[in-house]
Structure formats: structure tokens, C-alpha cells
């Protein structure tokens, strides 16, 4: 409990006396100057007050709002969502005949449980979504491959590929069906003021109002609102993070990613990823014979491949997935042989699966989009009355499909921390409460980011001995079952940290 604070404040009468001397005169004057009663001017101030203001109505921001709406302790909170994206207010539904949007996310089983817990997964199921239960990873050297299967860990799926707009719309629908008090502000955040404690700024006239210590947000359309807690869910170029003065660490990757949707001849419940010399290419099944391609390469090549005509692009893609850039790995039917034979008894079923060639791509089904890639981590996730979640706090390389899942993990953790705060009557913008969220998520996020960055660096060097080392790693992971199970568990979000869990 808060004993540490109780000890310092309540009995410390003597320490108070010395500090009070400096500003007590101001405050007592003010108290006598005011009409002496406690209900100070609030009625003339028509600025709306919210408990939580979520800046950014993307997938992660909406997930936080939806999670708060689904818990009994927090569903009475007033939530404001600030996002100028017109899609948030649009009432048109996503039609089945729409071509699949190339912006998709792979949601892990942990995220799927999070959605189910909020009651939002049922909305996702109404639209196109594709589960996959197998994954194959190999590289251009053709020396080795690894196959993962959900059955290795006794689960039914490894993940699900869903369009981002489906996720966002499902969360919005879930929130609208609940009776939470929320308001969507179709505007952008201009500036934010966080009032310091009135005990210091004794002459500040705002400080005597009940909203004196709340954060005040000014929006670009002139609207103004107060909030006890401001959540920055506004993406990697977070304005909230800049306004709160939180610095970041990170670097740009010398790579851009091309994403697009393609069609192929047959469906597979398998996700494919091949590491090429310049970066990995991933093929993620979306259902209905569609798949999403995420192809990382250096910026010049990305620009070229985006502007080349469709036929050439499809040929390049098929080469990248098939046997251009290097040979197919050989299927090891007998397992690792010799040195790894002693592990055979605990072998996972996927260890005996042969190498499969990914399906042939026949058509391009969407525009090609190019995004720059970078690693970014905010040095602090929290500041007085401000907390960052999702890409505003961290961005990662897409090579393992973890980015948005880290964001959903943040939203889940923050909503639980807010509920704990409400349960004991805390001020939800209080730093001690928010620090609990930060300590929980920072460790997990940094661990994942370090691993992904390690992979990105390991695969960006084409050097003989390193290639052999990577091939050995592939082999090792494929045949050492405890290692493979641990990797699947961690990537599925069931484990928070890669080891010690």
C-alpha cells in the first residue's frame, strides 16, 4: 500500500513548516480572498472534461478504448478519441467483395485472446480473416529451412492475418455496442498544457479551479477539452510524445518494405518467409486465394520494384519465393542425423515435414505501397498525465509480424493498470500508477525489439561462415524441440520474455 508516502507526508509536520513558510502566505491569502467555500468556479467553465483522452484512433488506440469499455471497473470512465481519420465516423460497412487492402497485420494467439476477452473478435469473424497453422522459414543460401506448426505446442493456430481496417472497424463496433460514454473528435491535436501543481504556482488563477491539474488539449478545429490521462496512440511520429518532451532512441534501417496483395492458385494455411540477400520476403495467407506480401529491400530497389510493370513484378516475386537468388533447401527426411539423434524422441511433428515450395503467384490484386523501416523506442513511456502505447512508444522491423501485437499488449496492460487504479480510488494520471504500466511493458518490448533487431542484422550480411552459422541455427531450431516450442510460444505472445518464463 502507500505506506511509504503516508510516512513522508502525514506525520512530517516539522518538515512541512519550513517549506510552507515560502508559499503559505500566498495560499492563505488566496483562501481568504476567495469566498471561502470549496466549490470553486467550475460552472462557468464549459470545457468538457474526460477521464481518458486517446489521441489516435488506430488499431491500438481503439483497442485501449474497447478494453476500458469491456471491464466493469472502467466502463463508467468518460473517454474521448481524437483522430481526424474520417473512417472513424463513417457508418458504411466493409463489403465482402472489396479487394483485400494490402495493409494487414498478423495477430498472435495472445492478441486473439485479448480481442475475445473484450468481445471484439466476433466482429472480426464477420469479415475476411485467415488463420494459419504452419510456417516455413528459409534463406537464399538453400542450406537449411525451419518449419513450425501449431501442433508442436498443442495449439490449433499460429496466428491470423487480418486487414487493419477490419481490426479497427471491429473494435469500433464493439465499443459502440457497449454503453461506454465516449466521444470521437474528428480533429487533430494541436497543443497540450499540463498544469503544474498549484502549490508551486500560487498566483496562477487557473489552479484554483477543479480542473486545475488536468491536462488541457487544444484541437486543430478549435475544440478544447480536459483529461485526467492523455494516451498517445498516434503512431511512430507521435505528436503527443513530442509535446510531452519524451525523447527516443533508434535508427533507420537501410531498408524499405513493399507491401501488396496478390492472388495465387491454391490456398494454404501456411505463412512463408524467405530471407534474401537484401531482406526477407513474406507471404501471408489472407483467405479466398489472396495473400499479402511484405518484401523488404533497399530503398532504390523498392522504388524500382514499385514502378515496374505488373508482369515483371510478379516474376520478381515468384523468383524471390521460389528458386531465384539461390537453390531450394534439401528436405531432410531422416531428421538431423547423428549429433541430434538423441533428441529424436521428443521431436516435433513439423521437424519431419519436407521442404515445400510456396504457391505460385498469378495476379497482383492491389497497389504496391512502400514504407521506410526503422527501429524506435521511446526512452520513457510515461510522463505526468501522459502515457504512450503502440507505435508511439516503439516501432520494430516487420520481419516477425510482431509490431502491432506489441501495441495490443501495451493496450491490454494499460487498461488493466487503469482498472487497478480505479479499484483503489487513485488518480489515473498519477505517475506511480503509470510507472507500473511502464515497468511491465518496457522489459517485454525491449526484449522483443532486441531479438528482432538481432535477426535483421544477422541476415543483412552475406558472408560464408556467417551463412553456415545461420544454416546451423535453422537446423538447430527445426530439430531441437524445446527450442522450437519456446520460439513458437514467445512469438505467439503466450510468453512475455524469451527466457525465464
Amino acid at each position, binding site marked *: *500500500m*502507500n*505506506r*511509504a*508516502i*503516508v*510516512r*513522508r*507526508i*502525514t*506525520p*512530517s*509536520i*516539522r*518538515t*512541512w*513548516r519550513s517549506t*510552507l513558510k515560502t508559499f*503559505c502566505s500566498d*495560499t*492563505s491569502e488566496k*483562501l481568504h480572498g476567495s469566498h471561502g467555500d*470549496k*466549490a*470553486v468556479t*467550475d460552472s462557468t467553465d464549459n470545457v468538457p*472534461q474526460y477521464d481518458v483522452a486517446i489521441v489516435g484512433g488506430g488499431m491500438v488506440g481503439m483497442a485501449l478504448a474497447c478494453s476500458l469499455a469491456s471491464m*466493469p*471497473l*472502467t466502463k*463508467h470512465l468518460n473517454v474521448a478519441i481524437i483522430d481526424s481519420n474520417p473512417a472513424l465516423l463513417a457508418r458504411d460497412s466493409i463489403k465482402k467483395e472489396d479487394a483485400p487492402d494490402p495493409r494487414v497485420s498478423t495477430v498472435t494467439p495472445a492478441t486473439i485472446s485479448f480481442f475475445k476477452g473484450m468481445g471484439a473478435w466476433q466482429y472480426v469473424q464477420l469479415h475476411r480473416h485467415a488463420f494459419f497453422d504452419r510456417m516455413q522459414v528459409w534463406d537464399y543460401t538453400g542450406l537449411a529451412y525451419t518449419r513450425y506448426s501449431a501442433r508442436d505446442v498443442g495449439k490449433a493456430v499460429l496466428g491470423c492475418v487480418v486487414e487493419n481496417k477490419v481490426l479497427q472497424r471491429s473494435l469500433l463496433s464493439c465499443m459502440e455496442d457497449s454503453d461506454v460514454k465516449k466521444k470521437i473528435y474528428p480533429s487533430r491535436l494541436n497543443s497540450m498544457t499540463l498544469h503544474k*501543481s*498549484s*502549490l508551486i504556482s500560487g498566483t496562477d488563477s487557473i*489552479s*484554483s*479551479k*477543479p*480542473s*486545475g*491539474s*488536468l491536462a488541457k488539449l487544444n484541437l486543430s478545429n478549435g475544440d478544447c477539452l480536459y483529461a*485526467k490521462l492523455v494516451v498517445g496512440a498516434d503512431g511512430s511520429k507521435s505528436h503527443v510524445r513530442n509535446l510531452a518532451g519524451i525523447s527516443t532512441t533508434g535508427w533507420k534501417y537501410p531498408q524499405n518494405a513493399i507491401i501488396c496483395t496478390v492472388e495465387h492458385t491454391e490456398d494454404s494455411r501456411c505463412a512463408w518467409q524467405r530471407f534474401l540477400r537484401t531482406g526477407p520476403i513474406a507471404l501471408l495467407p489472407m483467405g479466398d486465394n489472396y495473400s499479402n506480401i511484405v518484401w523488404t529491400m533497399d530503398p532504390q530497389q523498392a522504388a524500382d520494384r514499385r514502378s515496374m510493370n505488373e508482369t515483371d513484378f510478379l516474376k520478381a516475386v515468384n523468383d524471390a519465393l521460389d528458386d531465384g537468388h539461390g537453390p531450394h533447401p534439401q528436405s531432410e527426411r531422416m531428421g538431423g542425423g547423428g549429433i541430434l539423434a538423441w533428441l529424436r524422441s521428443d521431436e516435433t511433428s513439423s521437424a519431419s515435414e519436407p521442404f515445400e515450395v510456396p504457391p505460385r503467384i498469378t495476379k497482383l490484386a492491389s497497389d504496391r505501397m512502400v514504407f521506410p523501416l526503422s527501429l524506435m523506442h521511446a526512452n520513457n513511456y510515461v510522463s505526468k498525465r501522459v502515457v504512450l502505447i503502440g507505435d508511439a512508444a516503439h516501432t520494430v522491423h516487420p520481419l516477425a509480424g510482431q509490431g502491432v501485437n506489441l501495441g495490443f499488449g501495451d493496450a491490454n496492460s494499460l487498461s488493466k493498470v487503469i482498472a487497478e487504479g*480505479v*479499484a*483503489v*480510488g*487513485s*488518480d489515473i494520471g498519477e505517475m506511480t500508477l503509470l510507472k507500473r504500466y511502464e515497468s511491465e511493458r518496457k522489459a517485454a518490448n525491449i526484449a522483443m525489439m532486441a531479438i528482432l533487431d538481432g535477426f535483421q542484422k544477422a541476415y543483412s550480411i552475406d558472408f560464408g561462415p556467417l551463412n553456415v552459422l545461420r544454416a546451423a541455427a535453422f537446423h538447430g531450431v527445426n530439430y531441437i524441440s524445446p527450442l522450437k516450442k519456446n520460439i513458437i510460444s514467445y512469438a505467439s505472445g503466450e510468453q512475455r520474455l524469451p527466457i525465464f518464463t
Partner: protein
Amino acid sequence: MSPFRDPYSAKPFEGLKFVDVGCGGGILSEPLARMGATVTGIDAVEKNINIAQLHADLDPGTSSIEYLCTTAEKLVEEQRKFDAVLALEVIEHVAEPAEFCKSLSALTVSGGANVISTINRSMRAYATAIVVAEYLLHWLPKGTHEWSSFLTPEELVLILQRASISVQEMAGFVYNPLTGKWSLSDDISVNFIAYGTKNTE
């Protein structure tokens, strides 16, 4: 109306009147007010009440707390009654603990709750709460506590019993120096808290 309050409600104390005796800066009064209670905070030191009032005015959820610079005895003279009377870390600073408990009891409605927390008069408490907290770690100014004015749990139960309050539960607070966190425990050898109910007449 259901006799049970919803533990998952965000305002479980809705409709109840609480008094926080020795409220200091309002550190207990504010969360209780946010949880729905109608809170009155009293303290004998006027500066504390001023600070508490200013801080409570910053949050609309706590600006309704009634802060008074007074003592428990004076409130009894005004014949105020409360559903729950809380006196955390107060009784070890009071000159007459038995009289103090009688005042707390007089403020409580029949069947109402009393929560008192204090420090045990034990050797361990001398070592930790006085030597370590005041002289080594400087968590408190020297001389904040007098070991001789601490009460043992048995003494507290006895004086509460004489004031018509039956102690139902007792627990201790322990500090984990590795995590820096306090937690509730069964160890009442240093800091302890007692929950009692006013006997029904």
C-alpha cells in the same frame, strides 16, 4: 436493496459517510472520495487542512471532501455520526489513547466500522520504525515517534473493547526492500492495522 456492496463497482462506498481522523494532506481521504464515499477529513494542524483543501480542489472527483481543522473530541460534541471512522497512524501521537478511542467510538454509528493503524510497541518496531526510519534512512524526521507511546495489539484491542468496539480483523504492513513495495501481511510486529465494528446497542 441488496445488503451487499458490489466489489467490482468503481464506487463501492457510494452513500456512506466516512471520517478520516488526522487526515494530514488528504492522502487517504482523496482515494476514498473517488471511490464514492462522502468524506470528512479532520486534522488538528491548520496548515495540513489548507494543503489538503488545495490539493482536493484540483480534481473534480475530490473537491467535495469536507476538511475541518478540529479534533475528534470536538466532532463528538457536535454530535456528528459516521458509517466508518478511520484513524491511521494517529493514535501513537495522542496523549490519551483510551479517551481517543472513546471519541472515535462516539463518532461511529451503531454497527459502523472503525479502522485504526499504528505501530506495535516491540523491539523490532524500535529497531525499524525509529532507528532505521528516523536515524538511518531519514524517512521521517527524528523524534516523530516515541517508542513509549506505541500500543501493542493487545492493548489496542482492550481499549477499543472498553469503548464498545469489537475488533474483527488485524493485519500487518511489511516493506520489501528489494522491490521497494509495501504489502499487507500477517506480521503485526511492527506496523499493524485493526478493523473493528461498533457494538450494536
